[in-house]
């Protein structure tokens, strides 16, 4: 995975997170009649896609179907970008559970803004950028203080980008901690022998059973 300052619409073809983010679906209404692709709606009923059918399509497909020349589908705003959610983000960004809304919330929002080219309400982008920044404070705080936390409620509310930042920050802090205690170079009894972290004489590192 590579982190760059270029938007998702550019190259990064192999970016796994980008691929997964673009997999999110939006409700789409077909504007034209497309023969032979009736199976896209998941049922065996129709052979063709009739004009006006609503099918949820992934973002990458919508992007390719709507070129500058003609728009084959019309899409609605996803639930994640509605005014209600944005208002919630403006009020208290860190309390919103983005994982439940959309696991790749920020990447999808970025992609949609690029696709929409200005047809979204003006403040959408700013609200989202500001929300990211507000939540970031809590995330970065966690990277320094809670080094072992992986499954708490706070973490469950984060979207994938934030989880990534959290994990990398925790790893970095843990590495420094281990280096300071010279953990890699100390001889310890193997955890598989049942004592975990006891030193070579069998004395447990934290008060526990004696060997």
């Amino acid at each position, binding site marked *: *995975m*590579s*982190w*760059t*300052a*270029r*938007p*998702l619409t550019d190259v990064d073809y192999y970016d796994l997170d980008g691929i997964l983010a673009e997999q999110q679906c939006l409700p789409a209404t077909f504007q034209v009649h497309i023969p032979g692709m009736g199976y896209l709606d998941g049922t065996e009923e129709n052979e063709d896609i009739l004009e006006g059918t609503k099918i949820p399509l992934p973002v990458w497909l*919508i*992007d390719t*179907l*709507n070129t*500058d020349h003609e728009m084959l589908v019309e*899409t*609605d*705003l996803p639930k994640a970008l509605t*005014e209600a959610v944005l208002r919630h983000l403006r009020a208290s960004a860190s309390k919103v559970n983005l994982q439940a809304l959309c696991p790749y919330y*920020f990447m999808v*929002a*970025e992609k*949609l*803004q*690029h*696709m*929409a*080219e*200005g*047809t*979204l*309400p*003006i403040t*959408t*982008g*700013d609200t989202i*950028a500001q929300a*990211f*920044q507000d939540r*970031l*404070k809590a*995330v*970065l*705080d966690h*990277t*320094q*203080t809670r080094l072992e936390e992986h499954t708490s409620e706070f973490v469950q509310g984060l979207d994938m*980008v934030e989880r*990534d*930042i*959290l994990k*990398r*920050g925790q*790893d*970095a*802090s843990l*590495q*420094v901690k*281990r*280096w*300071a205690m*010279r953990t890699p170079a100390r001889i310890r009894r193997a955890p598989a022998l049942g004592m975990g972290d006891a030193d070579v004489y069998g004395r447990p590192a934290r008060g526990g059973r004696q060997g």
Partner: protein
Amino acid sequence: MALPVQLQSALSPAEAEFLAENERIQIEPLRQLPVLGLIETEIGPFVPPRSVSVPLWLAIVLKKRGLCHVKPPRWLTAESLQDLVQAERTQDQFTPLPFHYMEVAKMLLEVAGDDLPDAGTCQTLLQDLREARRSKARQGVEIMDQSHIRVDNLAQMELNELRAPFTMSFSMMKRLQAAANLSRLGGSGGGLTRTTAGGTGAGASGSRGGGGMPSSSGTAAYGGGSGLSY
């Protein structure tokens, strides 16, 4: 790149320690040694009891073989550390410290503990110093602006620790900001239509004061900077 993720964007602490070993330090040799002809420089001659300035790695090697005494750097004494901790706790900014203070202190305390007066107090004082600086780093996140944050006097190890999460955060913030600018300026109306009302098209371009250029900055310690990729 086939590097593990942690190494892709920052040094490992062991690498930082390796880099710190180039720092010069004063030693008093205990035996006479000839001039050492190394690739970059020549070190020596070692004539006891005259003190010589050597790189840290050499000092550690000699010390481990009992061939020298190490003279601690001026900042590695109980009193000066005490002052530093005091200054750190009272000031808002980070106090200036040697760039490799953590690594040098650790190596010296491990290997040359007997040459340092009050090695034990030094250890605890260093912990205090580190804690004070860490809490400052946490507060620094509050004032983070979208494209850069200016922090002076961070040491190598601390910088390294903050590098990965901070660069990722800045990258993402930049991307979101660029997308927001696109939304704000309006466009020809691409592949998305909205169900909520309110045309934004032409009306958007003049309405924001700051104009359309995303603020980018190359300055300061944490510039998220375009073209940084990991």
